[in-house]
């Protein structure tokens, strides 16, 4: 893969999936 594609794929995946994991982490355990 070319560098530009790797960078943009990483940014896309990290921001969206990272954001989702952060939000799921914020859900209290008992809910």
């Amino acid at each position: 893969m070319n560098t530009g594609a790797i960078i943009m794929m990483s940014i896309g995946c990290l921001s969206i999936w990272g954001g989702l994991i952060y939000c799921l982490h914020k859900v209290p355990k008992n809910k």
Partner: protein
Amino acid sequence: MSEKRDVWKSRRGFIFAAIGAAIGLGNLWRFPFQAYKNGGGAFFLPYAVALFTCAIPLMILEYTYGRRVKGGSIKAFANLGKKWEWLGWIQVMIPIVVMMFYSVIISISIIFMVWSVGHMLGIVNWMSDPGSIMGMIVGGGENAFDFSAGVSKYLLSFVIIVWIANWLIVRNGISNGIEKMSKVFVPLLIIMMISFMVKTLTLDGAVLGLNALFTPDFSKILNPGIWVAAYSQVFFSTTLAVGVMIAYGSYLDDKSDIVNNSFITVLSNASFDLIAGITVFSTLGFLVKTTGVDFNSFGNGAGVAFIAFPIAISTMTSNTVLQGFIGLLFFFSLFIAGLSSSISMLESFSTAALDKFSIDRKTMVGYISCVGFIGSVFFSTYAGFNYILDIVDVHISGYLITTVGLFEAVLISYYYGVEKIRLDANEYSDFKVGKSFNILIKYFSPFLLGLTVITNYIDVFKKTTELDPLQMKANLLFGWGGLILMAIASTVFFLKKWKIKDDKEVVV
């Protein structure tokens, strides 16, 4: 006495149902090509901005206002002023009309599931040539008025199954129907789609596809068209402004989280967009390398799912049992993605209509399903599927949804108050939204939605002027005619009296 209103039994159930409503077939074939056409990797910048400045704030608005009014769209709009109820009816008409043709597309995935079983058992061998099967299912018809071409018996037979599935789930209500179904099928869909993504990433040529999808072309970033495309993509993909999220929000408990649930719904849908993009383009890259086609060979719609994927599966392995099994899983995923969205569309209208009329849920859902099925019969004709479906889709998504979304954001902000929405949403949420939320809902979202509406109007109008007289006639009759029919039906329902609660007060 009126019956007690249903509520979501668990937070997990609500989130899965909302994710199921947002995730649909459009994720698989709309997002990947929007990104590919609009700057590749560079598209992710306006896309991410649109998620945080439009989709999430509007999702918070719809959940919160739905929960506050404890009702669907017509009650929600009627609370803003009696005359606005009409707009609520228009809003809930959209998902029913969309469902009429969406269920026909879902039925194709069931047909392909059956064919995959046949392939697995060695009865038919079709995966290397899915075009002929597709032609057999939907082929025929000269133009939009050629009803003499007849009706596809395949679509007609299987669309009945789709409507029965929808009816069986929605008639049981929120906690016993939609929530139970979503808690099983949505996680299953997520697991299957992640598995497909991982598998397609290992294919020879997947890198070609990923390069095509993610290589950024930053020269396009200053083009306003890309920003409008990103806002449209996010808006349609998250099922906003069609009454679904207002209806789902109305069944939330008063002490439930709103803000984090909105973030989770929108980001899950965006994650699915990304998974779909990687899966589709890895598969296309594989086909480009092995068969010499190009990325546009299968179009940018259903052709990718129903033509490119079976070909890719047949090229991956020569074992027909395995080919059939992978095909069965793939088309089952499409079926679940479609069904979890279609039940939310049926629920949008049902919730709204149940607020106004004294009819029990089972009867109401039965009536709506019968009317919807009759509409689906129309789209199962060769003329209906091949010509009229696109016309109706363009007019509803191009003109109506964003316009209604614009009105929704403006009216709720000004008549109800955006600060009240923010405080209400924050009260029991895992984290809070600041005052920037007010600016986004009151000014930023309406401005961008307004821009999207104007751009869509110009775009659709331009395309209409390029049509030949017969196509123009079809556009006027089925496109504008359909919109007028929706307006008339909305007026009829609007003029009917509200049911009386406890024989004393009017519900609204």
